[in-house]
């Protein structure tokens, strides 16, 4: 089984994704192929991050949480740019790529990442945990 560490995500996957994003337009002559390639790279980074989160049982130290939040923000930023690019080429007559499907898949993944971000942007105290967990109690009048 592939081990998915934070270092692997940062160095090998997100690093490559950022490098690819920076050289996106100048280095790619075929715009549609470039969009498809970038989306594949983004998807691989997404899956690597999810594997890391599940391996960590969704439980991070304060420092790890802040570092992972940065990864999530990078992914959301690049993902939103990709979504715009896909939107531009969605009506392409290129039969090799189903950009509508790519658009739907990326939108769903971005929605899931925003949930991750929302759940990690604040820590939650033990007192707050009790407050939420005691929700079977009738609300005070």
């Amino acid at each position, binding site marked *: 089984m*592939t081990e998915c560490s934070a270092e692997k995500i940062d160095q090998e996957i997100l690093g490559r994704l950022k490098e690819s994003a920076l050289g996106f337009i100048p280095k790619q002559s075929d715009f549609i192929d470039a969009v498809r390639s970038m989306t594949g790279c983004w998807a*691989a980074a997404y899956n690597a991050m999810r594997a890391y989160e599940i391996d960590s049982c969704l439980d991070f130290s304060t420092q790890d949480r802040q570092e992972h939040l940065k990864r999530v923000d990078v992914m959301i930023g690049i993902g939103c740019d990709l979504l715009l690019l896909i939107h531009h080429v969605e009506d392409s007559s290129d039969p090799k790529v189903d950009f509508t499907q790519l658009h739907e*898949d990326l939108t*769903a993944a971005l929605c899931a990442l925003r949930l991750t971000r929302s*759940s990690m942007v*604040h820590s939650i105290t033990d007192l707050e945990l009790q407050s*939420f967990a005691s929700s*079977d109690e009738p609300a005070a009048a």
Partner: protein
Amino acid sequence: MSQPQPNPSSSPTNSEKLRRLAELFVEIHKTPYGSPSLADLNQSYNELKEAYLADHDHYQRLYPDPDLRSQKFDSFIRNQASNILKNRATQQGGYSGPGWGGNRDYLASDC
């Protein structure tokens, strides 16, 4: 003699709703990119969450700001989801989610 059947009209308790939200949270995190179920899972989570928050006035008193309320609630659900994963890992002697398995080979395969 017929067995007593559960009443289909009985509403789930708050604990059951929270448990369902935590399980959805786990499923969302286990579902790989491109899975057709991801959008449905997102939608189910958001609908259940909105309904739950609307039903609980004390959350609104605790966190008057709607964004903060939403984020704190998501944090709470992540905590519950984490407990589910830890319990499964304890029971199975290490977690190996059905959503991943061979999908690990997908890492960076398109880069």
